[in-house]
């Protein structure tokens, strides 16, 4: 039986390690045993698809989910989901969640002393179009403190989850904003050793995406693992 090729492995330094003591929560959660290397089979190269509306209706404007307008700086975030070879990935689910403009999540665990916004939940989803493109309208999230180290603050960020073509391409990541002075102090951002990979996490401000008198535009592409150059062996 003919198999499509397996997916390329990540390069050294291109992904964060599991154990990264500067991010304290990794210390008791990172595996201590070496991972078991395993060649891809049908189980790894297949994965869920969402083009049929399986995940429910799109919700791409997070500023229109309540009666009133949320507080904060209105932004447009758009980009392509691509593989390493630059091929767009259509029909894949993109999930987004974030805190509000004051730096507070609409979540019971978040006890940060900042106001909730009754007009902002902070969750959305989209399925990419034929060109692998997604687009959200939201507000710029605030920075917020966390207890990783004294006086630690997370840089403003959006959380994104993306699937891609196979179960091995699954990606959950965070998008940051250009020029944020907190990035150099943030161990979650800094955990990826390769600077080119790390800077993939920073969106680009694009005046052409901004809408006059309405919202600032940011471009954020997400690049998933591509096919391996060597063909899948059939013995």
């Amino acid at each position, binding site marked *: 039986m003919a198999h499509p090729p397996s997916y390329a492995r990540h390069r050294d330094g291109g992904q964060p390690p599991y154990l990264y003591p500067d991010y304290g929560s990794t210390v008791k959660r990172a595996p201590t045993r070496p991972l078991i290397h395993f060649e891809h089979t049908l189980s790894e190269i297949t994965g869920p698809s969402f083009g049929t509306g399986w995940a429910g209706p799109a919700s791409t404007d997070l500023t229109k989910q309540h009666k009133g307008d949320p507080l904060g700086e209105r932004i447009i975030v758009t980009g392509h989901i691509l593989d*390493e070879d630059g091929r767009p990935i259509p029909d894949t689910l993109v999930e987004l969640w974030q805190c509000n403009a004051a730096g507070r999540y609409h979540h019971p665990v978040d006890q940060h002393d900042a106001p909730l916004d009754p007009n902002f939940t902070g969750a959305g989803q989209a399925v990419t179009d034929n060109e692998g493109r997604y687009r959200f309208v939201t507000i710029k999230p605030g920075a917020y403190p966390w207890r990783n180290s004294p006086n630690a603050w997370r840089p403003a960020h959006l959380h994104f989850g993306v699937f891609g073509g196979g*179960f091995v391409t699954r990606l959950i990541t965070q998008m940051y904003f250009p020029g944020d002075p907190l990035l150099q102090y943030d161990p979650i951002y800094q955990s990826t050793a390769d600077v080119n990979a790390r800077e993939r996490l920073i969106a680009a401000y694009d005046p052409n995406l901004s809408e006059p008198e309405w919202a600032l535009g940011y471009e954020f592409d997400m690049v998933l693992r591509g096919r391996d150059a060597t063909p899948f062996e059939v013995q």
Partner: protein
Amino acid sequence: MADKLTPTPGQTVGPFFSLGLDRPEWADMTRHNPCGERIVIEGRVLDGNGVPVSDALIELWQANSEGRYDHLHDEQGDKKIDPNFHGYGRVATDPHGEFRIKTIKPGPVPGRGNALQAPHINVAFFARGLLRQLHTRIYFSDEAANASDPLLSSIENGAVRRTLIARKGEGGAYRFDFILQGQGETAFLDI
């Protein structure tokens, strides 16, 4: 060949993912009434101190009861797609670090070459404190095919191998715990 693009690094799912990712209905993969044997898999997640992990997210991907994935690259002509089974599920742990998922027992699926893989569910595992996901598999203790499964057979240490096998307990549910560190540490896969 043109230069490859640099893949986007993973970043932790954080403690607030339920805001965007929690879909309780996705923990019941039988909700559209698929073909196959109904099963329940339950367990808990423990960290290196033995403390329950109440903010973990478990994603599952599996073949249908005949052993076919609902995906265009699964071209097994002798097995049918089940229109009532998509194969993808998701569950978050509760405040006690416990989870419960309803699904159907997958059929065996082809491995590399002529190998056949024992029935299994593929898992992507996320949590605060994990900068990117872990991958593992759930096998089933009552499957004779485990003995010839390529992945299980490749793990020489029996105690490590057994961490991948869900055991049927009293009441009929399968039990599968995720032990992130220490004694009984779950075998995670580099895929």
